[in-house]
Protein backbone atom coordinates (compact mmCIF):
# COMPACT_ATOMS: atom_id res chain seq x y z
CA UNK A 1 0.00 0.00 0.00
CA UNK A 2 1.17 3.48 -0.77
CA UNK A 3 2.29 5.24 2.38
CA UNK A 4 1.99 8.94 2.99
CA UNK A 5 4.57 11.20 4.50
CA UNK A 6 3.78 13.93 6.98
CA UNK A 7 5.97 16.86 7.83
CA UNK A 8 5.05 19.00 10.77
CA UNK A 9 6.12 22.63 10.86
CA UNK A 10 5.81 25.21 13.59
CA UNK A 11 2.91 27.51 12.65
CA UNK A 12 4.73 30.66 13.75
CA UNK A 13 8.37 30.07 12.84
CA UNK A 14 7.83 27.52 10.03
CA UNK A 15 10.62 25.51 11.59
CA UNK A 16 10.54 21.84 10.65
CA UNK A 17 9.66 20.01 13.82
CA UNK A 18 9.07 16.48 12.69
CA UNK A 19 9.04 14.29 9.64
CA UNK A 20 6.94 11.15 9.64
CA UNK A 21 7.42 8.70 6.84
CA UNK A 22 5.45 5.53 6.24
CA UNK A 23 2.19 6.93 7.54
CA UNK A 24 -0.91 4.98 6.59
CA UNK A 25 -3.18 7.10 4.40
CA UNK A 26 -6.13 6.07 6.60
CA UNK A 27 -4.38 7.33 9.67
CA UNK A 28 -6.35 9.81 11.72
CA UNK A 29 -5.08 13.11 13.08
CA UNK A 30 -5.23 11.55 16.54
CA UNK A 31 -2.76 8.87 15.44
CA UNK A 32 -0.47 11.47 13.87
CA UNK A 33 -0.55 13.42 17.11
CA UNK A 34 0.55 10.32 18.97
CA UNK A 35 3.44 9.86 16.55
CA UNK A 36 4.43 13.51 16.97
CA UNK A 37 4.48 13.13 20.74
CA UNK A 38 7.13 10.41 20.38
CA UNK A 39 9.65 12.92 19.05
CA UNK A 40 8.47 15.79 21.27
CA UNK A 41 7.22 14.22 24.50
CA UNK A 42 6.54 17.59 26.15
CA UNK A 43 3.75 18.18 23.63
CA UNK A 44 1.25 15.51 24.52
CA UNK A 45 -1.63 15.12 22.04
CA UNK A 46 -4.12 17.22 24.04
CA UNK A 47 -1.98 20.31 23.69
CA UNK A 48 -1.34 19.90 19.96
CA UNK A 49 -3.24 21.89 17.41
CA UNK A 50 -2.53 20.69 13.89
CA UNK A 51 -3.81 22.54 10.90
CA UNK A 52 -3.40 22.66 7.14
CA UNK A 53 -2.83 26.39 7.17
CA UNK A 54 -0.76 28.23 9.81
CA UNK A 55 -3.66 30.59 10.47
CA UNK A 56 -6.43 28.11 9.75
CA UNK A 57 -8.70 26.08 11.95
CA UNK A 58 -7.51 23.09 13.94
CA UNK A 59 -8.01 19.70 12.36
CA UNK A 60 -10.21 17.31 14.29
CA UNK A 61 -8.83 14.15 15.87
CA UNK A 62 -11.22 12.04 13.78
CA UNK A 63 -10.15 13.54 10.43
CA UNK A 64 -8.52 10.99 8.15
CA UNK A 65 -5.30 11.92 6.38
CA UNK A 66 -6.45 10.53 3.06
CA UNK A 67 -9.57 12.68 3.06
CA UNK A 68 -7.68 15.94 3.57
CA UNK A 69 -6.66 18.12 0.61
CA UNK A 70 -3.01 17.05 0.74
CA UNK A 71 -0.69 15.15 -1.58
CA UNK A 72 1.32 12.11 -0.62
CA UNK A 73 3.47 14.41 1.50
CA UNK A 74 1.23 16.33 3.85
CA UNK A 75 2.41 19.53 5.47
CA UNK A 76 0.77 20.22 8.80
CA UNK A 77 1.29 23.26 10.97
CA UNK A 78 1.61 22.86 14.71
CA UNK A 79 0.51 25.25 17.42
CA UNK A 80 1.05 24.61 21.12
CA UNK A 81 -2.22 25.06 22.98
CA UNK A 82 -0.42 25.30 26.30
CA UNK A 83 -0.73 23.06 29.30
CA UNK A 84 -4.07 21.26 29.32
CA UNK A 85 -6.27 19.94 32.06
CA UNK A 86 -9.17 17.56 31.71
CA UNK A 87 -12.72 18.91 31.79
CA UNK A 88 -13.66 16.39 34.48
CA UNK A 89 -10.88 17.63 36.76
CA UNK A 90 -11.91 21.25 36.25
CA UNK A 91 -15.58 20.56 36.89
CA UNK A 92 -14.92 18.52 40.01
CA UNK A 93 -12.62 21.16 41.45
CA UNK A 94 -14.80 24.13 40.64
CA UNK A 95 -17.92 22.45 42.07
CA UNK A 96 -16.38 20.87 45.17
CA UNK A 97 -15.17 24.31 46.27
CA UNK A 98 -18.57 25.98 46.67
CA UNK A 99 -20.00 22.87 48.39
CA UNK A 100 -17.28 22.94 51.01
CA UNK A 101 -16.94 26.72 51.33
CA UNK A 102 -20.66 27.32 51.89
CA UNK A 103 -20.61 24.79 54.74
CA UNK A 104 -17.75 26.65 56.41
CA UNK A 105 -19.99 29.70 56.61
CA UNK A 106 -23.10 27.68 57.50
CA UNK A 107 -21.39 26.12 60.49
CA UNK A 108 -19.92 29.50 61.39
CA UNK A 109 -16.38 28.26 61.58
CA UNK A 110 -14.11 30.60 63.63
CA UNK A 111 -12.59 33.80 62.20
CA UNK A 112 -15.49 34.55 59.85
CA UNK A 113 -18.03 36.20 62.14
CA UNK A 114 -17.37 37.50 65.65
CA UNK A 115 -16.04 34.94 68.18
CA UNK A 116 -19.28 34.87 70.11
CA UNK A 117 -20.94 33.34 67.00
CA UNK A 118 -18.45 30.49 66.47
CA UNK A 119 -20.24 27.22 65.71
CA UNK A 120 -23.63 28.73 66.50
CA UNK A 121 -26.68 27.98 64.41
CA UNK A 122 -29.10 30.39 62.72
CA UNK A 123 -32.58 30.67 64.18
CA UNK A 124 -34.12 31.17 60.74
CA UNK A 125 -35.57 28.11 58.98
CA UNK A 126 -34.84 29.60 55.58
CA UNK A 127 -31.10 29.63 56.34
CA UNK A 128 -31.13 25.88 56.92
CA UNK A 129 -33.24 25.36 53.82
CA UNK A 130 -30.85 27.46 51.78
CA UNK A 131 -27.92 25.34 52.92
CA UNK A 132 -29.74 22.19 51.85
CA UNK A 133 -30.59 23.67 48.43
CA UNK A 134 -27.12 25.05 47.78
CA UNK A 135 -25.45 21.80 48.85
CA UNK A 136 -27.90 19.71 46.84
CA UNK A 137 -27.21 21.82 43.77
CA UNK A 138 -23.47 21.27 43.89
CA UNK A 139 -23.69 17.59 44.86
CA UNK A 140 -25.96 17.15 41.84
CA UNK A 141 -23.38 18.88 39.66
CA UNK A 142 -20.56 16.69 40.96
CA UNK A 143 -22.55 13.51 40.35
CA UNK A 144 -23.54 14.66 36.88
CA UNK A 145 -19.89 15.33 36.07
CA UNK A 146 -18.95 11.83 37.16
CA UNK A 147 -21.88 9.86 35.76
CA UNK A 148 -23.98 11.82 33.31
CA UNK A 149 -22.13 14.24 31.09
CA UNK A 150 -20.45 13.14 27.87
CA UNK A 151 -17.76 15.66 26.95
CA UNK A 152 -16.86 16.57 23.36
CA UNK A 153 -13.43 17.75 24.32
CA UNK A 154 -11.22 15.96 26.78
CA UNK A 155 -9.26 19.01 27.93
CA UNK A 156 -9.16 22.76 28.28
CA UNK A 157 -6.25 25.18 28.88
CA UNK A 158 -4.81 24.96 32.37
CA UNK A 159 -5.32 28.65 33.16
CA UNK A 160 -9.07 28.10 32.96
CA UNK A 161 -9.10 26.25 36.24
CA UNK A 162 -7.80 29.30 38.09
CA UNK A 163 -10.25 31.60 36.38
CA UNK A 164 -13.23 29.27 36.89
CA UNK A 165 -12.43 28.42 40.50
CA UNK A 166 -12.01 32.08 41.39
CA UNK A 167 -15.46 32.75 39.97
CA UNK A 168 -17.29 29.84 41.60
CA UNK A 169 -15.46 29.83 44.91
CA UNK A 170 -15.47 33.61 45.20
CA UNK A 171 -19.19 33.97 44.63
CA UNK A 172 -19.97 31.01 46.88
CA UNK A 173 -18.05 32.63 49.74
CA UNK A 174 -19.65 36.02 49.11
CA UNK A 175 -23.19 34.60 49.09
CA UNK A 176 -22.62 32.23 51.98
CA UNK A 177 -21.21 35.05 54.13
CA UNK A 178 -24.46 37.00 54.05
CA UNK A 179 -26.98 34.16 54.14
CA UNK A 180 -25.32 32.64 57.20
CA UNK A 181 -24.55 35.95 58.88
CA UNK A 182 -25.84 36.44 62.44
CA UNK A 183 -27.50 39.67 61.20
CA UNK A 184 -29.21 37.95 58.25
CA UNK A 185 -32.71 39.33 57.50
CA UNK A 186 -35.24 36.70 56.34
CA UNK A 187 -37.43 37.37 53.25
CA UNK A 188 -39.94 40.21 53.47
CA UNK A 189 -42.96 38.02 52.60
CA UNK A 190 -41.96 35.25 54.96
CA UNK A 191 -42.96 31.61 54.50
CA UNK A 192 -45.03 32.38 51.38
CA UNK A 193 -42.00 33.76 49.60
CA UNK A 194 -39.80 30.88 50.70
CA UNK A 195 -42.34 28.27 49.57
CA UNK A 196 -42.74 29.83 46.14
CA UNK A 197 -38.99 30.15 45.74
CA UNK A 198 -38.45 26.55 46.82
CA UNK A 199 -40.98 25.35 44.27
CA UNK A 200 -39.20 27.28 41.51
CA UNK A 201 -35.87 25.90 42.66
CA UNK A 202 -37.00 22.27 42.80
CA UNK A 203 -38.79 22.40 39.45
CA UNK A 204 -35.76 23.92 37.79
CA UNK A 205 -33.36 21.43 39.36
CA UNK A 206 -35.52 18.56 38.07
CA UNK A 207 -35.75 20.28 34.71
CA UNK A 208 -32.02 20.81 34.48
CA UNK A 209 -31.36 17.17 35.38
CA UNK A 210 -33.93 15.96 32.84
CA UNK A 211 -32.21 17.92 30.09
CA UNK A 212 -28.79 16.57 31.06
CA UNK A 213 -30.15 13.03 30.86
CA UNK A 214 -31.83 13.71 27.52
CA UNK A 215 -28.61 15.12 26.09
CA UNK A 216 -26.68 12.13 27.38
CA UNK A 217 -29.06 9.74 25.67
CA UNK A 218 -28.54 11.57 22.39
CA UNK A 219 -24.95 10.50 22.33
CA UNK A 220 -23.72 6.90 22.66
CA UNK A 221 -20.87 6.27 25.11
CA UNK A 222 -17.43 7.15 23.74
CA UNK A 223 -18.81 8.89 20.68
CA UNK A 224 -18.72 12.55 19.73
CA UNK A 225 -21.80 12.60 17.52
CA UNK A 226 -24.06 15.62 17.51
CA UNK A 227 -27.79 15.38 16.97
CA UNK A 228 -30.71 17.76 17.32
CA UNK A 229 -32.25 17.30 20.77
CA UNK A 230 -36.02 16.76 20.82
CA UNK A 231 -38.65 16.62 23.61
CA UNK A 232 -39.13 13.17 25.17
CA UNK A 233 -41.92 11.72 27.29
CA UNK A 234 -40.53 13.64 30.26
CA UNK A 235 -42.52 16.91 30.48
CA UNK A 236 -39.45 18.79 31.62
CA UNK A 237 -37.88 18.18 28.23
CA UNK A 238 -40.80 19.80 26.41
CA UNK A 239 -38.90 23.08 26.82
CA UNK A 240 -36.84 21.84 23.84
CA UNK A 241 -39.79 22.93 21.70
CA UNK A 242 -39.04 26.54 22.51
CA UNK A 243 -35.37 26.69 23.39
CA UNK A 244 -32.04 25.24 22.18
CA UNK A 245 -30.41 25.08 25.62
CA UNK A 246 -33.14 24.42 28.20
CA UNK A 247 -30.47 23.22 30.62
CA UNK A 248 -29.29 26.83 30.85
CA UNK A 249 -32.85 28.09 31.10
CA UNK A 250 -33.49 25.81 34.07
CA UNK A 251 -30.16 26.73 35.62
CA UNK A 252 -30.98 30.44 35.58
CA UNK A 253 -34.41 29.57 36.97
CA UNK A 254 -32.83 27.64 39.86
CA UNK A 255 -30.67 30.58 40.83
CA UNK A 256 -33.55 33.03 40.55
CA UNK A 257 -35.45 30.72 42.89
CA UNK A 258 -32.52 30.69 45.29
CA UNK A 259 -32.29 34.49 45.14
CA UNK A 260 -35.96 34.89 45.97
CA UNK A 261 -35.64 32.33 48.75
CA UNK A 262 -32.73 34.04 50.44
CA UNK A 263 -33.57 37.63 49.40
CA UNK A 264 -29.86 38.21 49.13
CA UNK A 265 -28.49 40.71 46.60
CA UNK A 266 -25.19 38.87 46.02
CA UNK A 267 -27.21 35.82 44.95
CA UNK A 268 -29.14 37.99 42.49
CA UNK A 269 -25.86 39.35 41.12
CA UNK A 270 -24.47 35.83 40.78
CA UNK A 271 -27.60 34.85 38.87
CA UNK A 272 -27.21 37.85 36.59
CA UNK A 273 -23.57 37.11 35.81
CA UNK A 274 -24.34 33.44 35.26
CA UNK A 275 -27.25 34.35 33.03
CA UNK A 276 -25.04 36.62 30.93
CA UNK A 277 -22.44 33.90 30.44
CA UNK A 278 -25.00 31.19 29.72
CA UNK A 279 -26.71 33.43 27.19
CA UNK A 280 -23.43 33.81 25.34
CA UNK A 281 -22.94 30.03 25.39
CA UNK A 282 -26.55 29.38 24.37
CA UNK A 283 -26.31 31.76 21.42
CA UNK A 284 -23.12 30.06 20.30
CA UNK A 285 -24.66 26.61 20.60
CA UNK A 286 -27.80 27.79 18.79
CA UNK A 287 -25.69 29.18 15.97
CA UNK A 288 -23.78 25.91 15.54
CA UNK A 289 -27.01 23.94 15.53
CA UNK A 290 -28.36 26.21 12.79
CA UNK A 291 -25.16 25.84 10.81
CA UNK A 292 -24.96 22.10 11.14
CA UNK A 293 -28.60 21.12 10.67
CA UNK A 294 -30.68 22.40 7.75
CA UNK A 295 -33.90 21.19 9.34
CA UNK A 296 -33.40 22.85 12.72
CA UNK A 297 -36.75 23.80 14.30
CA UNK A 298 -37.33 27.49 13.52
CA UNK A 299 -39.45 28.24 16.61
CA UNK A 300 -36.54 27.70 18.99
CA UNK A 301 -34.66 30.57 20.64
CA UNK A 302 -31.28 30.06 22.33
CA UNK A 303 -32.20 30.40 26.01
CA UNK A 304 -35.43 32.31 26.76
CA UNK A 305 -38.58 31.23 24.88
CA UNK A 306 -39.51 33.77 22.20
CA UNK A 307 -37.15 36.39 23.57
CA UNK A 308 -33.45 35.60 23.68
Amino acid sequence: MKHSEVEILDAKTREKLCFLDKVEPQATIAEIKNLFTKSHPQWYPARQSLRLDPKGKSLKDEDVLQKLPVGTTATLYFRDLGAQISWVTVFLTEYAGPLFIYLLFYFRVPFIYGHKYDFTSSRHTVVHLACICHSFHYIKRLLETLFVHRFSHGTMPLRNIFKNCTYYWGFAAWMAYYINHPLYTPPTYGAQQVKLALAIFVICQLGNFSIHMALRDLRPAGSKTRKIPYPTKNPFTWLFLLVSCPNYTYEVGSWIGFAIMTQCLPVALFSLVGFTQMTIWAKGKHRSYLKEFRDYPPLRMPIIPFLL
Partner: protein
Amino acid sequence: MASSEEDGTNGGASEAGEEREAAGKRRRRGLLATAWLTFYNIAMTAGWLVLAIAMVRFYMEKGTHKGLYRSIQKTLKFFQTFALLEIVHCLIGIVPTSVLVAGVQVSSRIFMVWLVTHSIKPIQNEESVVLFLVAWTVTEITRYSFYTFSLLDHLPYFVKWARYNFFIILYPVGVAGELLTIYAALPYVKKTGMFSIRLPNKYNVSFDYYYFLLITMASYIPLFPQLYFHMLRQRRKVLHGEVIVEKDD
Protein backbone atom coordinates in the same frame (compact mmCIF):
# COMPACT_ATOMS: atom_id res chain seq x y z
CA MET B 1 -3.71 54.52 35.17
CA ALA B 2 -6.59 56.73 34.21
CA SER B 3 -4.39 58.51 31.70
CA SER B 4 -6.45 57.06 28.91
CA GLU B 5 -3.54 55.90 26.82
CA GLU B 6 -4.47 53.02 24.57
CA ASP B 7 -3.39 52.09 21.12
CA GLY B 8 -6.92 52.01 19.80
CA THR B 9 -7.39 55.06 17.68
CA ASN B 10 -10.49 56.91 18.66
CA GLY B 11 -10.85 58.01 15.10
CA GLY B 12 -7.79 57.31 13.04
CA ALA B 13 -4.44 55.55 12.83
CA SER B 14 -0.85 56.64 12.63
CA GLU B 15 1.82 55.32 10.33
CA ALA B 16 1.81 53.90 6.82
CA GLY B 17 0.64 50.34 7.38
CA GLU B 18 -1.92 51.29 9.95
CA GLU B 19 -3.04 54.17 7.75
CA ARG B 20 -3.79 51.86 4.87
CA GLU B 21 -5.70 49.57 7.16
CA ALA B 22 -7.45 52.49 8.78
CA ALA B 23 -8.26 53.95 5.37
CA GLY B 24 -9.95 50.66 4.52
CA LYS B 25 -11.75 50.77 7.83
CA ARG B 26 -12.72 54.37 7.19
CA ARG B 27 -14.17 53.47 3.81
CA ARG B 28 -16.22 50.84 5.59
CA ARG B 29 -16.81 53.26 8.45
CA GLY B 30 -18.81 55.66 6.33
CA LEU B 31 -18.82 59.38 5.83
CA LEU B 32 -21.21 60.12 8.69
CA ALA B 33 -19.11 58.26 11.21
CA THR B 34 -15.92 59.95 10.04
CA ALA B 35 -17.56 63.37 10.18
CA TRP B 36 -18.91 62.71 13.66
CA LEU B 37 -15.57 61.39 14.96
CA THR B 38 -13.73 64.37 13.51
CA PHE B 39 -16.15 66.72 15.22
CA TYR B 40 -15.91 64.75 18.45
CA ASN B 41 -12.12 64.79 18.55
CA ILE B 42 -11.89 68.47 17.66
CA ALA B 43 -14.40 69.29 20.38
CA MET B 44 -12.53 67.25 22.96
CA THR B 45 -9.19 68.76 22.00
CA ALA B 46 -10.73 72.19 22.41
CA GLY B 47 -12.37 71.30 25.71
CA TRP B 48 -9.17 70.08 27.31
CA LEU B 49 -7.31 73.09 25.92
CA VAL B 50 -9.84 75.35 27.59
CA LEU B 51 -9.29 73.42 30.80
CA ALA B 52 -5.52 73.78 30.51
CA ILE B 53 -5.74 77.49 29.91
CA ALA B 54 -8.18 77.96 32.79
CA MET B 55 -5.79 76.15 35.12
CA VAL B 56 -2.82 78.24 34.02
CA ARG B 57 -4.79 81.48 34.35
CA PHE B 58 -6.00 80.55 37.81
CA TYR B 59 -2.51 79.85 39.01
CA MET B 60 -1.16 83.04 37.45
CA GLU B 61 -3.89 85.12 39.08
CA LYS B 62 -4.08 83.48 42.50
CA GLY B 63 -0.54 82.15 42.89
CA THR B 64 -1.89 79.05 44.67
CA HIS B 65 -3.53 75.77 43.74
CA LYS B 66 -6.14 76.15 46.48
CA GLY B 67 -9.52 76.70 44.90
CA LEU B 68 -8.25 75.60 41.49
CA TYR B 69 -10.36 72.43 41.40
CA ARG B 70 -13.52 74.32 42.32
CA SER B 71 -12.92 76.88 39.61
CA ILE B 72 -12.50 74.30 36.79
CA GLN B 73 -14.71 71.50 38.07
CA LYS B 74 -17.69 72.16 35.79
CA THR B 75 -15.56 72.10 32.64
CA LEU B 76 -13.67 69.02 33.84
CA LYS B 77 -16.85 67.14 34.66
CA PHE B 78 -18.45 68.07 31.35
CA PHE B 79 -15.62 66.96 29.10
CA GLN B 80 -14.54 63.93 31.10
CA THR B 81 -18.12 62.64 31.35
CA PHE B 82 -18.68 63.30 27.64
CA ALA B 83 -15.88 60.82 27.01
CA LEU B 84 -18.33 58.02 27.88
CA LEU B 85 -19.28 58.30 24.23
CA GLU B 86 -16.01 56.62 23.40
CA ILE B 87 -17.44 53.37 24.73
CA VAL B 88 -20.35 53.77 22.34
CA HIS B 89 -17.92 54.39 19.47
CA CYS B 90 -16.32 51.02 20.22
CA LEU B 91 -19.69 49.29 20.62
CA ILE B 92 -20.94 50.41 17.22
CA GLY B 93 -17.58 49.64 15.67
CA ILE B 94 -16.60 53.00 14.24
CA VAL B 95 -13.45 52.82 16.30
CA PRO B 96 -11.19 49.72 16.39
CA THR B 97 -10.61 49.67 20.16
CA SER B 98 -12.20 46.92 22.21
CA VAL B 99 -15.19 47.92 24.32
CA LEU B 100 -13.55 46.43 27.39
CA VAL B 101 -10.35 48.52 27.07
CA ALA B 102 -12.24 51.73 26.39
CA GLY B 103 -14.67 50.89 29.20
CA VAL B 104 -11.91 50.41 31.75
CA GLN B 105 -10.12 53.58 30.71
CA VAL B 106 -13.17 55.84 30.82
CA SER B 107 -14.58 54.22 33.96
CA SER B 108 -11.42 54.85 35.92
CA ARG B 109 -11.59 58.53 34.93
CA ILE B 110 -15.29 58.78 35.84
CA PHE B 111 -14.50 57.08 39.15
CA MET B 112 -11.72 59.55 39.92
CA VAL B 113 -13.78 62.62 39.00
CA TRP B 114 -17.20 61.76 40.42
CA LEU B 115 -16.62 59.18 43.13
CA VAL B 116 -13.47 60.66 44.61
CA THR B 117 -12.74 64.29 43.84
CA HIS B 118 -16.32 65.53 43.51
CA SER B 119 -17.73 63.51 46.40
CA ILE B 120 -15.00 63.89 49.00
CA LYS B 121 -14.82 67.67 49.33
CA PRO B 122 -12.03 67.93 51.94
CA ILE B 123 -9.42 66.62 49.49
CA GLN B 124 -10.24 69.02 46.66
CA ASN B 125 -7.38 71.35 47.60
CA GLU B 126 -4.74 68.65 47.81
CA GLU B 127 -1.68 69.11 45.61
CA SER B 128 -2.14 65.59 44.28
CA VAL B 129 -5.34 66.72 42.55
CA VAL B 130 -3.40 69.29 40.54
CA LEU B 131 -0.86 66.59 39.78
CA PHE B 132 -3.30 64.28 38.05
CA LEU B 133 -5.23 67.17 36.48
CA VAL B 134 -2.06 68.39 34.77
CA ALA B 135 -1.17 64.88 33.63
CA TRP B 136 -4.68 64.23 32.28
CA THR B 137 -4.89 67.61 30.55
CA VAL B 138 -1.63 67.27 28.65
CA THR B 139 -2.38 63.62 27.82
CA GLU B 140 -5.85 64.34 26.50
CA ILE B 141 -4.85 67.35 24.41
CA THR B 142 -2.13 65.22 22.82
CA ARG B 143 -4.38 62.20 22.34
CA TYR B 144 -7.39 63.99 20.87
CA SER B 145 -5.32 66.14 18.52
CA PHE B 146 -3.53 62.97 17.41
CA TYR B 147 -6.89 61.40 16.54
CA THR B 148 -8.10 64.59 14.87
CA PHE B 149 -5.06 64.90 12.62
CA SER B 150 -5.15 61.19 11.81
CA LEU B 151 -8.79 61.44 10.76
CA LEU B 152 -7.97 64.40 8.57
CA ASP B 153 -5.07 62.45 7.08
CA HIS B 154 -2.53 65.14 7.95
CA LEU B 155 -0.68 63.91 11.00
CA PRO B 156 2.36 66.07 11.79
CA TYR B 157 5.24 64.01 13.06
CA PHE B 158 5.52 66.02 16.26
CA VAL B 159 1.96 65.12 17.23
CA LYS B 160 2.68 61.44 16.71
CA TRP B 161 5.94 61.88 18.59
CA ALA B 162 4.16 63.59 21.47
CA ARG B 163 1.46 60.92 21.68
CA TYR B 164 4.01 58.13 21.93
CA ASN B 165 6.53 59.89 24.18
CA PHE B 166 4.69 62.14 26.63
CA PHE B 167 3.03 59.17 28.30
CA ILE B 168 6.43 57.98 29.54
CA ILE B 169 6.37 60.79 32.10
CA LEU B 170 2.68 61.64 32.21
CA TYR B 171 1.48 58.14 32.97
CA PRO B 172 3.43 57.68 36.21
CA VAL B 173 2.71 61.28 37.19
CA GLY B 174 -1.00 60.78 36.68
CA VAL B 175 -0.98 57.51 38.61
CA ALA B 176 0.90 59.18 41.47
CA GLY B 177 -1.61 62.02 41.58
CA GLU B 178 -4.54 59.62 41.59
CA LEU B 179 -3.13 57.32 44.26
CA LEU B 180 -2.13 60.20 46.52
CA THR B 181 -5.60 61.70 46.17
CA ILE B 182 -7.35 58.45 47.06
CA TYR B 183 -4.96 58.00 49.96
CA ALA B 184 -5.75 61.51 51.25
CA ALA B 185 -9.46 60.72 51.03
CA LEU B 186 -9.30 57.56 53.14
CA PRO B 187 -9.67 59.14 56.60
CA TYR B 188 -12.78 61.09 55.55
CA VAL B 189 -14.35 58.02 53.99
CA LYS B 190 -13.72 55.96 57.11
CA LYS B 191 -15.06 58.66 59.41
CA THR B 192 -18.26 59.38 57.47
CA GLY B 193 -18.99 55.85 56.25
CA MET B 194 -20.01 57.40 52.91
CA PHE B 195 -21.27 55.23 50.02
CA SER B 196 -21.45 52.29 52.40
CA ILE B 197 -24.21 49.88 53.41
CA ARG B 198 -24.14 48.10 56.75
CA LEU B 199 -25.88 44.96 57.99
CA PRO B 200 -28.62 44.25 58.83
CA ASN B 201 -30.71 45.29 55.82
CA LYS B 202 -33.43 43.56 53.86
CA TYR B 203 -31.20 42.82 50.84
CA ASN B 204 -28.60 41.06 52.96
CA VAL B 205 -25.65 42.82 51.41
CA SER B 206 -22.97 45.13 52.69
CA PHE B 207 -20.47 47.46 51.07
CA ASP B 208 -17.65 49.36 52.68
CA TYR B 209 -16.36 52.17 50.47
CA TYR B 210 -13.21 52.47 52.59
CA TYR B 211 -12.14 48.90 51.80
CA PHE B 212 -13.27 49.34 48.21
CA LEU B 213 -10.84 52.28 47.89
CA LEU B 214 -8.05 50.23 49.44
CA ILE B 215 -8.65 47.43 46.95
CA THR B 216 -8.75 49.96 44.11
CA MET B 217 -5.40 51.35 45.17
CA ALA B 218 -3.97 47.85 45.35
CA SER B 219 -5.25 47.06 41.87
CA TYR B 220 -2.99 49.75 40.43
CA ILE B 221 -0.05 47.47 41.24
CA PRO B 222 -0.82 44.75 38.69
CA LEU B 223 -2.67 46.98 36.22
CA PHE B 224 -0.43 50.01 35.82
CA PRO B 225 2.70 48.09 34.64
CA GLN B 226 0.63 46.15 32.11
CA LEU B 227 -0.81 49.31 30.57
CA TYR B 228 2.52 51.10 30.72
CA PHE B 229 4.45 48.33 28.99
CA HIS B 230 1.70 47.97 26.43
CA MET B 231 2.17 51.64 25.51
CA LEU B 232 5.95 51.15 25.40
CA ARG B 233 5.50 48.26 22.97
CA GLN B 234 3.16 50.37 20.84
CA ARG B 235 5.73 53.14 20.88
CA ARG B 236 8.49 50.86 19.63
CA LYS B 237 6.25 49.56 16.88
CA VAL B 238 4.97 52.93 15.72
CA LEU B 239 8.00 55.13 16.09
CA HIS B 240 10.75 52.67 15.36
CA GLY B 241 9.00 50.21 13.10
CA GLU B 242 10.03 47.35 15.30
CA VAL B 243 8.31 44.07 14.52
CA ILE B 244 7.32 42.57 17.82
CA VAL B 245 6.48 38.86 17.96
CA GLU B 246 3.66 38.64 20.47
CA LYS B 247 3.82 35.96 23.14
CA ASP B 248 1.64 33.01 22.20
CA ASP B 249 -1.50 32.99 24.27
